């Protein structure tokens, strides 16, 4: 999908370098306050893991998976927390920050006067969001391995899966932001994000839902992300996970394409 769509939008000659310059610009703005924000982003999933995975897990007891295996509740919840944190890391950078830069700081107006194209800005911003999201993911996976919730080998694979999840949600975040009219609209996004967080097979296996609801849940991007990462950290990945990967790649490609097109339409009138 990526190889089909992207070359038509971007000629790769110089595009990577120009997107890289966007990343460099963001790195130059890093100040001490930002590290606190980053720290909060890392702590959040760990808090969920302890409170729900371990705390609630003590009440819930062990869980029987659809394939018959029995696992501790924390082991079941941890990969979902990783997926959710990859989602929120990518979204916070590509929604609030991206919207603010585009509409209020008028940052991109200046940049578009250089050889950089809208799609290259989008790609650079996405890459930046990924750097942040991947740091969260790596730190969380270390915690998981230390707590014996997965193996080191599975953690490495899960890291790449989390990166893919980040790219997919980064693409969604940017595309959605181009439709936002004001800051109020972001409340809707937060609600949607929270609903995804609660119902994407994160805390309860989706198999426990009524059939119709289950079908709805299973097409959401966070469910596919949780499914992918959980099957890696618990072991037992199969053909369904190939579908997860293709699905997330498609979401990423569509999101980035829509974001690039709409940025061009809005900024290059």
């Amino acid at each position, binding site marked *: 999908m990526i190889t089909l769509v992207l070359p038509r939008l971007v000629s790769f000659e110089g595009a990577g370098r120009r997107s890289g310059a966007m990343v460099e610009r963001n790195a*130059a703005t890093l100040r001490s306050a930002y590290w606190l924000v980053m720290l909060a982003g890392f702590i959040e999933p760990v808090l969920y893991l302890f409170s729900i995975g371990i705390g609630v897990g003590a009440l819930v007891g062990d869980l029987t998976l659809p394939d018959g295996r029995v696992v501790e509740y924390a082991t079941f919840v941890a990969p979902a927390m990783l997926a959710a944190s990859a989602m929120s890391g990518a979204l916070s950078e590509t929604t609030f920050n991206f919207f603010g830069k585009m509409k209020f700081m008028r940052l991109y107006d200046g940049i578009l006067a*250089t*050889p950089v194209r809208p799609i290259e800005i989008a790609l650079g911003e996405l890459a930046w969001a990924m750097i942040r999201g991947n740091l969260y993911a790596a730190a969380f996976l270390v915690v998981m391995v230390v707590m014996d919730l997965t193996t080191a080998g599975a953690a490495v694979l899960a890291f790449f899966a989390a990166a893919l999840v980040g790219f997919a949600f980064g693409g969604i975040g940017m595309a959605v932001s181009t439709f936002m009219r004001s800051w109020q609209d972001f409340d809707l996004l937060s609600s949607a994000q929270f609903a995804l967080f609660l119902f994407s097979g994160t805390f309860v296996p989706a198999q426990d839902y009524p059939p119709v609801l289950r079908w709805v849940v299973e097409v959401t991007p966070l469910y596919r992300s949780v499914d992918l990462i959980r099957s890696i950290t618990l072991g037992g990945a199969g053909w369904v996970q190939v579908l997860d990967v293709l699905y997330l790649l498609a979401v990423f490609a569509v999101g980035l394409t829509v974001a690039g097109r709409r940025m061009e339409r809005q900024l290059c009138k």
Partner: protein
Amino acid sequence: MTLIHARGLVKRFGDFTAVDGIDVDVERGEAFGFLGPNGAGKSSTMRMIGCVSPPTDGVLRILDLDPRTDGPRIRARLGVCPQLDNLDIELTVRENLTTYARFFGIPRRVARSRADELLEFVQLTERADSKVEPLSGGMKRRLTIARAMVNEPDIVLLDEPTTGLDPQARHLVWERLFRLKQQGVTLVLTTHYMDEAEQLCDRLVVMDGGRIVAEGSPRALIERYSTREVVELRFHGESQDVFADKLAGLGERVEVLPDRILLYVSDGDAAVAEVHRRSLEPASVLVRRSSLEDVFLHLTGRTLVD
């Protein structure tokens, strides 16, 4: 060599036609001005030349390239100073130049040394490590001009470079732009300040309602559309109108304004003598040389356009 070549250039936004078929040629080393009231289509024209706004119709070639297909290659050789400063408020003054240079693919080391030179040029060296926010309007504008120079452009586009600046800041900007012009940089600017156009432009077009209504050097435009001198008369009393009849036939044109009467004449002193001969006693008399402002108001009218 013609750097900018436009024929029948049109820009429409929905039903609204911002630029209505203009022909422009800008030569290398020239300082070229777009003069016009607000809404004349100057900024839309500049955005098309800056390759951030696709033309709706007509021919546009910049540096002998087509903006529709070669946008990035053209923009690499342009410097743009927009009407509203869009500096990066999250970066320092120096970082604004060094990171901007990176968007042009300029190596970091070159970017740093060029930033130092440019800060010196726009007299901001002492504020290099300051954030952008606390800078005065004039300083921000100078920084924006420095940023437009960071890729050593062939053409610098300046959209109303001194709007909103105090007189000292304006003169400093003019002086810097004049230095650029002396170095052979091609300047294309929009303005509604007549003194700015007279100071900086070798050649200019007057735009009104999306069209070009006059073209030439400031001197030639004054000669063609105005007289050599203008006499401004103010009379005591409620209305200036009653005096207008008595001034009929004086000079080429008599213009009655609410607060004064303008006589467009070739010899101001002779006209004043004639006024006195007709036993008129104005409260004040001013004889001045005709300016681009007279041309501008003559061509675009005195009605306020917004």
